[in-house]
């Protein structure tokens, strides 16, 4: 899941200041799960902005609409009928959602209301943790399903580093040592021999090597 957090209201107000009619567009997928840009959060932000504008004596219209998914064009086209009524879109989607909307409506200003953070997991209610970098070459099999690149502070493929104390990382005692977890997991699976292998430096060309990545699946295309 892509996680995000809402920008401060003051920052959002500055960005929407030049526009008189603004549509706040939420997204019902990842950012709804992380309580940043779903229907409730979109309603709350739009309400707060309307109040802020009214108190400041600004003549502004701020409406709201939440799409099921803002990064898929089939869902974004629901804006076709309403977008002409607005000067700007305030998107509560992730960075991909903001860009999908901006790409579809070139003439409309699209403003991000969220800071997109990381690929993560909902660990418990109200707690999201980063556990995937999207490296393009998954090695989770070798590490018992725990990614050292996203969860080890030093991104070590051949750990542990020796700084772990009591199962916690030396850079911050609140951070669990990923390598302690990897060893515990592989021990419980009788698979510690996977760590006898020396892993060469990560081939980052699959992530950053040739510019923006894309996936083409001909069997899924028209």
């Amino acid at each position, binding site marked *: 899941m892509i996680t995000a957090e809402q920008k401060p*209201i003051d920052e959002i107000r500055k960005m929407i200041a030049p526009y008189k009619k603004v549509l706040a567009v939420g997204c019902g997928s990842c950012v709804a799960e992380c309580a940043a840009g779903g229907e409730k959060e979109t309603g*709350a932000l739009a*309400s*707060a902005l*309307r*109040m802020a504008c009214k108190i400041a004596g600004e003549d502004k219209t701020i*409406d709201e609409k939440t799409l099921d998914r803002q990064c898929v064009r089939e869902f974004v086209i629901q804006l076709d009928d309403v977008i002409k009524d607005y000067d700007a879109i305030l998107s509560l989607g992730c960075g991909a959602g903001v860009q999908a909307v901006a790409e579809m409506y070139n003439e409309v200003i699209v403003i991000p209301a969220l800071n997109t953070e990381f690929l993560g997991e909902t660990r418990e209610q109200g707690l999201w943790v980063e556990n995937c970098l999207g490296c393009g070459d998954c090695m989770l099999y070798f590490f018992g399903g725990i990614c050292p690149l996203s969860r080890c502070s030093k991104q070590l493929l051949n750990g542990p580093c020796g700084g772990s104390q009591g199962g916690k990382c030396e850079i911050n005692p609140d951070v669990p040592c990923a390598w302690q977890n990897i060893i515990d997991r592989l021990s419980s699976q009788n698979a510690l021999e996977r760590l006898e292998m020396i892993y060469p430096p990560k081939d980052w060309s699959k992530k950053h090597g040739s510019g923006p990545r894309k996936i083409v699946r001909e069997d899924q295309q028209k």
Partner: protein
Amino acid sequence: MKNKLTRNLAIFYCQNVPGSQDDVRQSLEEKYGKAVRLFPMPCSGRIDVVHLLRALEEYADAVYVITCPPGACRYHEGNKRIVKRVDTAKKIIESIGLEKDRIKLITPPIELALKPLTSFVEEIEEEAAAIEPSAMHKKKAQGAGNKVQGKKEKK
């Protein structure tokens, strides 16, 4: 008895609060007219930030949330969750220039577990006399009393 309210209030309350049956709500609505809007909720944990903001935006000079006493929530932690949501809503309204005390959480101590809804509302009525009109509704609030004031911003 005539009410003393000169401000418009939204009162959200857990339906587990004693004496909060529908007939009580109706009699309170008759007494206070449109100045008090009562929102019975299955649990205070069902109330979200957006509900509190919308009430302030559309109508209310102040919003009250009445919960069960600590440890008495039938869903175990609804009255704990609302504490954090009220805090979040207070921070939001403060950031836009409204006083944070326009949202108030009432959690009675366990000794007052049998305190009925009408007593809470009467106390709120007394307290509300000191509330200044909200910057959101200043013009409307003059002589508010029982006038309808819930119109949403023009879209």
